[in-house]
């Protein structure tokens, strides 16, 4: 009896230390990759990323145990078998079939055990099963050097760098590229899938909570790859539908004289902005080289998710876009930036800002 209770006590103690150790390691992981950070893969806010993190943890713990065992054996060997002077030559052991069979079978068993959840996860993350609410919302995402275009085909709506989805629904995102390879990645919601020209890829994701999620291009795509980002805004179904209705209206209604002047610059031959940007409801601005700006002011960020949408940032951008995003098409092709037309004056920039800020 006494022995048994001691044994139980010991096991308890062991379990406790194990628990403490696990808690400690998890703590290190979470501190090192703080889940508060906007692209942390530990802060899973959707079923796909959660599934991926669960699989990661299985591998992490198995791997950690194997590493600790191997390190322990190495340390033991180093401490125990150091050569001392006068040591005889150790026994020349050439092998041991039984041992070798054991340590061939052992990893096979581990691998087979891991293979089951592995393959399950591949299929589970490839498409949503029936347990998810699915309103068949499909969004076309197109990667371009270096920004994202989002199209809602069923609503006839095109926007840029900011994609809205309703929470609690499985959303399918079809992935395209207009030029080189890109990759669509919202770390808190789902792992990435590449955007490959001439290949129609897709992924699905679901956001459980409303919020602004960070997205980042994850496949090297040239000079400004580091600056190719976007925001995914998850909101309730009602908010989402309201957003859709708002986005479908024509934005241009302001009568502010400064904004009016800005529009004239936008539509002028010298500045030529209209040739590449669409603003719905105007006759002239129908270009599709650059982002659709119809409801520009309703976006939280611009320049592919890298700048907050405010006066100061807009000024910085319009003054010298190449400084903000090296190599971008606007800096390269627009006469006002490549030196083939007069540069914008500060007043003209102010007018353009007023115009853009009016595109609610």
């Amino acid at each position: 009896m006494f022995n048994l209770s001691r044994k139980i006590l010991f096991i308890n103690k062991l379990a406790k230390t194990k628990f403490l150790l696990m808690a400690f390691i998890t703590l290190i992981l979470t501190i090192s990759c703080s889940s508060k950070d906007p692209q942390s893969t530990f802060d899973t806010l959707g079923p796909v990323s959660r599934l991926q993190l669960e699989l990661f943890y299985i591998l992490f713990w198995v791997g950690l145990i194997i590493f600790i065992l191997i390190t322990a054996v190495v340390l033991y060997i180093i401490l125990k078998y150091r050569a001392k002077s006068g040591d005889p030559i150790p026994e020349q052991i050439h092998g041991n079939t039984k041992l070798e069979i054991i340590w061939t079978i052992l990893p096979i068993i581990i691998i087979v055990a891991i293979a089951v959840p592995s393959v399950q996860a591949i299929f589970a993350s490839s498409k949503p099963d029936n347990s998810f609410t699915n309103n068949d919302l499909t969004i076309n995402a197109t990667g371009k050097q270096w920004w994202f275009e989002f199209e809602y085909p069923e609503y006839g709506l095109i926007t840029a760098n900011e994609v809205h989805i309703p929470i609690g629904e499985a959303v399918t995102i079809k992935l395209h590229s207009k030029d080189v390879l890109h990759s669509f990645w919202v770390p808190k919601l789902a792992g990435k899938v590449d955007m490959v020209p001439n290949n129609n890829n897709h992924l699905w994701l679901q956001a459980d909570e409303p919020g602004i999620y960070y997205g980042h291009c994850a496949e090297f795509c040239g000079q400004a790859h580091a600056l190719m980002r976007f925001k995914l805004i998850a909101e309730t179904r009602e908010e989402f539908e309201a957003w859709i209705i708002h986005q479908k209206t024509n934005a241009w209604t302001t009568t502010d004289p400064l904004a009016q002047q800005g529009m004239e610059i936008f539509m002028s031959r010298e500045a030529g902005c209209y040739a590449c940007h669409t603003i719905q409801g105007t006759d002239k601005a129908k270009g599709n080289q650059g982002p659709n700006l119809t409801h520009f002011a309703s976006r939280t960020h611009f320049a592919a998710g890298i700048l907050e949408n405010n006066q100061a940032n807009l000024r910085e951008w319009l003054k010298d876009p190449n400084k903000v995003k090296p190599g971008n098409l606007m800096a390269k092709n627009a006469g006002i930036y490549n030196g083939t037309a007069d540069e914008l004056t500060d007043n003209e920039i102010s007018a353009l800002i007023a115009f853009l800020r009016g595109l609610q």
Partner: protein
Amino acid sequence: MTSFPLQISRPIHPTGIWNWITTIDHKRIGILYGVTAFILFIIGGIEAMLMRSQLASSNMKLINPELYNQLFTMHGTTMIFLAIMPMGAAFFNYLIPLQIGARDVAFPRLNAFSYWTFLAGAIILNASWFLGGAPNAGWFGYAPITGKAYNVGHGIDFWIVSLQVLGIASLAAAFNFIVTIINMRAPGMTFSRLPVFTWMSFITAILLVLAFPVITVALIELMFDRFYGTNFFITSAGGNPVLWQHLFWVFGHPEVYILILPAMGIVSEILPTFSKKPLFGYPVVILSGIIIAFMGWMVWSHHMFTVGLGPVANSVFALTTMAIAIPTGVKIFNWLATLWKGSLTLNTPMLYAIGFILTFTIGGISGVMHSQAASDAQQQDTYFIVAHIHYVLFGGSLIAILGGIYYWFPKFSGRMYNETLGKLGFYSFFIAMNITFFPMHFTGLNGMPRRIYTYSSEFGWDFWNLISTIGVFLLAAAMIIFIYNIVSSWINGEKAPADPWDARTLEWSIPSPPPEYNFAVIPTVEHRDDWWEKKMQNKTSEEISSGDIHLPQPSYWPFVVSIGLLIAAFGLIYNIPVAILGTAITMIGVYAWSFEPVNDPD
């Protein structure tokens, strides 16, 4: 004998630069390979330090994005093709003939040709820095960003042409070693007695022969796209960029094993020597090497889990990738069993070999993590992968190569290195390496994509990036200790005996450094670890040579043929007539080589 034009007699230059240019001695070529590769390794390291400086904190303005892209492309290409691979070739050259009891390789002039062609490839690639900018599309050169539409300069052209030239060098070397190992073994040196390093080199050479044609096909297609307007990878004309990825990784994954198998061979030599025990489970270690090499052909798409190949393909490649962990794990267990109950001398090479086991295990474990296609979608193209690749290449291949340099240093230099400095170098290297690369696991899991030249402070990546950057400078300091130790010991280290480690294989039975002819008398091999067995049985009596040793003679032509390739490569990029001239020089060189006379023995 009939006389042919251009029948120039063999060069006789006992010393000086011409001696090195015309040498066909495998030991000298090995040293040429090693020194050249090490210099290129330093260049690749400087590129890494520049990148890490730019990433030290968010929004740094040290390096512009275009230069950054060139730096990471050149860092990857340099480290893989110009540093680690040729360092492996240095070991092959120096050691294989010594380990199998031969006086040289099967084709000594081809061996010299391999070296000079490798040097030509290195020059072509690095010349791009001075001729309008280095390649900037990554060492993987994913289409279509390598196409003319997105990449107008000559950088990519240099990359394409130099890799093809390097491919010629690698293929020539690989054929040479395969034939050498099959045909030049001393009597009694059967395949079941072959030293493990030679075995791993043999497997590596076979992988090279099979893998390089695949990348050559891809490179030629890309070259035709860029030079002659074909549409293999031109997406606007319907080309499929995924084709490039398949071709690249069908080569690229065996390439991973081309980089790691020689390292495993080196470790399998060091561990037995310094534990005074034979390698545990020799047949199993060899067999796992073969299985790894074979299965290496079935896993390439695990580099493409996010390309959209679909769940079935992803599952298949996830399973094959997991399976490859089995023979790798078996090797690690066998190494541990080799140490078990041994009599361990923890000097510098041994420390590197044990360090290899630990860091390579970390890289192996993160490798199995990446085999999980579903969770890999979160890790692919992030710093977590950067951490993984550096744990297997730096903490795997390179750490073993550095250990190998120390281990065979007495043999090739004839001198002993400084043990205290060696250990200091190892510990600082090992610690700095982990400070540099371990934090990349954290930044990767924290969502940091790779190949970005800058990042915003809002991501929370600043701290660990700074640590990585500090680590790389510590690493540079550790490498300076290593270089100082090697250089100063080479110049005035203590004279080394033939067998300073009481080692096991044939290279230790001959003087340090070995005479030009290696073995006065070709040994007759009776055991695995023959030299050790002979020492045990006190049968190591010096045999005196009969004095009539036939050695292959130096030649000008390998150098000339390589120069022709160098000129042809620049011609392909700039001017076709120059390419024709270069090819003509090569052809003349090959012709003269074929009919090169042999000087009279006396």
